[in-house]
């Protein structure tokens, strides 16, 4: 089966402007490729600044890429025009991280949810009952219909944002850290809701997060990003059970586990220092300055993402 989303060698460089000319480029995304199968969730993990959100925005064409391409359902997203682009904007949606600023403070919930419906000229016989149905679907009710966003909690707002996206009957949703601004108890509810919706509407998710526990719960596949590149990719359980890249291993060993005995027994892999600047990434493997097991080859040459086991890819000289 053809994957719903194919990302091919995607790059996005942001120019850094000096006084008169461009001083350099922030290589936010530097050659990223992956596929997302229909009806599955790909978890995109990485620390802040690794380019996760930029990848999400590029796929939805909220940013134009420096090079590379994204195929949605076999069509090149960056070449879409007119009707096709509009149809893509209906099918592919995004839920943003900060529910406090992703809703227009001057619009009521009714207006917020109806706006995309009007834009895409979706025929709705009774707008009010249409919106109420959606509100019930995401765990709100008709008393919330004519209120403004400031009257809601963070979790409720994220539910409104999800309802707004659902109104368009999308196929694919980029979830950009949808729960990181919320309380833990609320997080669980929202994640549960997202899973339910995926099952009911056969949705495909790109789940962006730095919270590994959440990603493990949500994802079928996992891609780990470091400084604009994917360092490891594979089925979620396999990557979690047997991480191959030293960066992934270090990340996973930092997940807190609610068991002191187990915690003491576990070996923590320490990574020293800060991630290098994406303006001037280190030569060779980008992780080598912080890697606990560096060899000569790591400093000289950049490892490619290669299939080590069936479906499990890793970009490391030592892991193969």
């Amino acid at each position: 089966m053809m994957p719903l989303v194919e990302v091919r060698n995607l790059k996005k460089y942001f120019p850094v402007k000096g006084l008169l000319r461009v001083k350099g480029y922030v290589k936010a995304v530097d050659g990223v490729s992956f596929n997302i199968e229909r009806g599955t969730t790909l978890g995109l993990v990485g620390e802040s600044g690794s380019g996760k959100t930029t990848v999400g925005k590029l796929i939805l064409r909220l940013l134009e890429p420096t090079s590379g391409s994204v195929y949605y359902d076999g069509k090149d997203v960056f070449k879409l025009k007119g009707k096709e682009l509009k149809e893509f904007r209906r099918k592919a949606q995004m839920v943003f991280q900060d529910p406090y600023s992703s809703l227009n403070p001057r619009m009521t919930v009714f207006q917020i949810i109806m706006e995309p419906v009007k834009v895409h000229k979706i025929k709705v016989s009774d707008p009010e009952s249409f919106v109420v149905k959606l509100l019930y679907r995401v765990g709100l009710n008709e008393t919330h219909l004519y209120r403004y966003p400031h009257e809601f909690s963070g979790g409720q707002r994220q539910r409104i944002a999800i309802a707004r996206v659902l109104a368009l009957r999308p196929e694919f949703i980029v979830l950009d850290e949808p729960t990181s601004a919320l309380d833990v108890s609320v997080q669980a509810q929202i994640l549960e809701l997202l899973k339910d919706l995926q099952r009911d509407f056969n949705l495909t998710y790109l789940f962006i997060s730095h919270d590994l526990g959440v990603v493990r719960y949500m994802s079928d596949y996992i891609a780990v990003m470091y400084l604009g590149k994917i360092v490891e990719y594979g089925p979620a359980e396999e990557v979690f059970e047997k991480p191959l890249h030293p960066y992934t291993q270090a990340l996973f060993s930092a997940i807190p586990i609610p068991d002191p005995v187990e915690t003491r027994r576990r070996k923590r892999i320490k990574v020293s220092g800060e991630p290098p600047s994406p303006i001037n990434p280190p030569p060779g493997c980008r992780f080598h300055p912080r890697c606990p097991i560096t060899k000569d080859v790591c400093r000289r040459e950049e490892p490619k993402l290669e299939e080590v086991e069936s479906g499990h890819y890793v970009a490391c000289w030592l892991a193969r």
Partner: protein
Amino acid sequence: MSEEVYEKKLLDKFSDAVIDAFASLADKIRPGWKKRNKSRIDEWKLMAYAFNRSPPGIIGAVLIVSFIVLAIVGPYLAPFSYDLQLTFFDPDAKRAPPGTVIEIKGKLAEVLGVKPGNYTLILGADDQGRDLLSRLLYGARTSLVIAILVMAVGPWIGIILGLIAGYYGGKIDELIMRITDVFLAFPGLILAIAFSAVLPPRISVFLDNHPDVRDFFLTLFALKPQHAGPLASLLAVVVALWIVWWPGYARLVRGMTLSERENIYVEAARALGVPTRWILLRHILPNILGPILVYLTLDFGGVILTEAGLSFLGLGAVPPIADWGRIIYDGSNYFPKDWWTILYPGLAIFLTVLGFNLVGDTLRDVLDPKTRRSIEFKVKKKREG
């Protein structure tokens, strides 16, 4: 919710009644409006409540309302027409001081369409022997209509350009802002003088070719049909002020748009496929409307003042049109001996502009949610303590 917390005085009940009446009207035109906008109605009532706590605001509102009422009904209340020279009845009517009584009788009264009888010139007469009170009342109409015509177009040119410049950025922004800079480099008044000197003949031709438009504006300005020529001079002022009135708004709106477009709801709207036009008008504009509204209110007085200034320089209204600036210009030769020819029109301009400034300042506090809260808290504290 507001009813429970705030003690409402008579004025608050009045403003609530006005808002409720408006809401009912909107509900009748569009069924369900009241239900859909309940939160908004509550917010308006809260704003009115905060506004009512500001004595300068109330004084300003009273000044503005009386100005508007006088401008609408003034021409009907005026004892004489704006161009009637009382010297026909009394050779001494020229620059007659306030309180002069003029006796009108005979055939002449019939011809000129004035009821015979004794008239007291409450505010005196001008250098042509025209009743000053009547001219001030007609002048209010002139000022209001010009201000409305200017404000209905001029600022919006700037607002639209500012939205486009701020939203798109880059080369479009550069182009629009450099044009704005060119306009800002000339003093507005000088530019307006240049345009109001060049435009009248063209507008005259236009009015001759479009009698419907001419008649509409004659009624709007409450002018006699034979004064179509002077009407062109007034419309020239309006057009001249359109041309010079937008750059300030373009600057203001561009700045606010720049910061507003960084909000994620703008990006969310783009992701949903909302067209740029909608994003500008339905997402960004409503969120920056508060400061624009304050600026518009303050500028209303500014337009009246500038228009009076142009007329005072002899460039706006031409005789015999009643215009506050023009009345001062006509009286300036006889000051300070015949002080009433200047004092009363000056007072009219002063009070009107003051009204708009007071209301504008108060609106600034009321529309800003932060200062509005502080007004509410102050009131609460006072009552509790």
